[in-house]
């Protein structure tokens, strides 16, 4: 009884340790779209293990001149990436230090346009589909490797669909903005036209209605 107890607990410990290790290497990724108000900065933080590769993709979807400042800092406070007024960019880095990495988007240079920003932050490689597949001893069969290839290809398709969707959203926002602006400017111009023509007539009439000598009236 006593010998069975340590064996089952050691198996449990091993399983938990394996789970912990898998969690460490797990893809933690976030794909978010948020609105950045004018003169504001928003930061996001992520815990990264040493030696793990992470990538940051970002794109400005709507707002102003479609540009944003972005910088990435490592846990020691060094800036490992900094760009100003970029419309979209992609940045990958292998973490040398374990800790919390911070990436920030800044719209501080803009006074009135708030921006919608999309970012995709991926850490590590994709985990196996089943948790206990990580320690397989046999090679993949042809079927399995074909499935893996198709999966990777479909991931690329989904990624390119996302980028296309973002570009289309940007163009559509611009087209809708243009549509509204045509209306406002047309109404504004019509009003200005009426105001100018009435005031022209009134002004001319005022030149001639003063009780002035005929010579001055003729002169003006």
């Amino acid at each position: 009884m006593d010998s069975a107890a340590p064996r089952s607990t050691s198996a449990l410990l091993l399983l938990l340790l394996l789970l912990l290790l898998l969690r460490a290497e797990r893809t933690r990724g976030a794909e978010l779209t948020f609105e950045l108000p004018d003169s504001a900065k928003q930061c996001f933080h992520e815990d990264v293990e040493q030696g793990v590769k992470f990538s940051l993709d970002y794109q400005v979807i709507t707002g102003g001149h479609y540009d944003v400042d972005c910088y990435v800092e490592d846990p020691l406070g060094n800036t490992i990436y900094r760009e100003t007024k970029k419309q979209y960019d992609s940045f990958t880095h292998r973490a040398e230090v374990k800790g919390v990495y911070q990436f920030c988007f800044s719209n501080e240079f803009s006074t009135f346009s708030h921006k919608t920003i999309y970012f995709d932050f991926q850490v590590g490689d994709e985990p196996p589909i089943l948790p206990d597949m990580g320690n397989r001893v046999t090679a993949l069969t042809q079927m399995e490797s074909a499935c893996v290839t198709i999966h990777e290809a479909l991931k690329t398709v989904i990624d390119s669909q996302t980028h296309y969707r973002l570009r289309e959203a940007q163009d559509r926002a611009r087209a809708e903005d243009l549509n509204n602006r045509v209306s406002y400017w047309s109404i504004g111009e019509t009003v200005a036209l009426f105001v100018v023509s009435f005031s022209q007539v009134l002004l001319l009439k005022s030149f001639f209605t003063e009780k002035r000598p005929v010579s001055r009236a003729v002169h003006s």
Partner: protein
Amino acid sequence: MAGVGARGRLVMGWPVLLLLALCAAGARGLYFHIGETEKRCFIEEIPDETMVIGNYRTQMWDKQKEVFLPSTPGLGMHVEVKDPEGKVVLSRQYGSEGRFTFTSHTPGEHQICLHSNSTRMALFAGGRLRVHLDIQVGEHANNYPEIAAKDKLTELQLRARQLLDQVEQIQKEQDYQRYREERFRLTSESTNQRVLWWSIAQTVILILTGIWQMRHLKSFFEAKKLV
């Protein structure tokens, strides 16, 4: 489970608990800081009939210890989800740790807003709250080990299921793309029409105003006996 003998349980129990605690206490991923009454909104542009699962965890800043507490009961977050037309799909209060799910019925931009409603923050936190957030959309929201266990699938069958889900996601996105392109085309055609009609209208108004000006001034000068 930690051992049959009582002594075995005492000796072997704590490393298990420690490992369990380590597993549980790991950060759930991306986090950001939020102020007390601040509302943080995220936009998800998704096709219809797509499931979105969001997980969040909050930590409060402890002013005395100058560190974020691991978990604080009593903190609440209000989650509000709006569909593309602005109608509220989900509006619920969750605890300091929560999970929200919704399925989109119309394609478009859904807005997920989070804000804290806790009054304790003003007293203890100095106005800072750390929010760990994880939003999974569509086929990323599927939990494959769970599906394998529930439907008793082999590894290959599970892979096939994953590929089918991915292809379905791609199909939905393409349908949504078609709908978006139609909207874009309608907007462009509307702009085209507006430019045409407003240009004609403004030219007509300009001519009419010019004619009115001339006639009015002519009658005015005739009355003044200058013409």
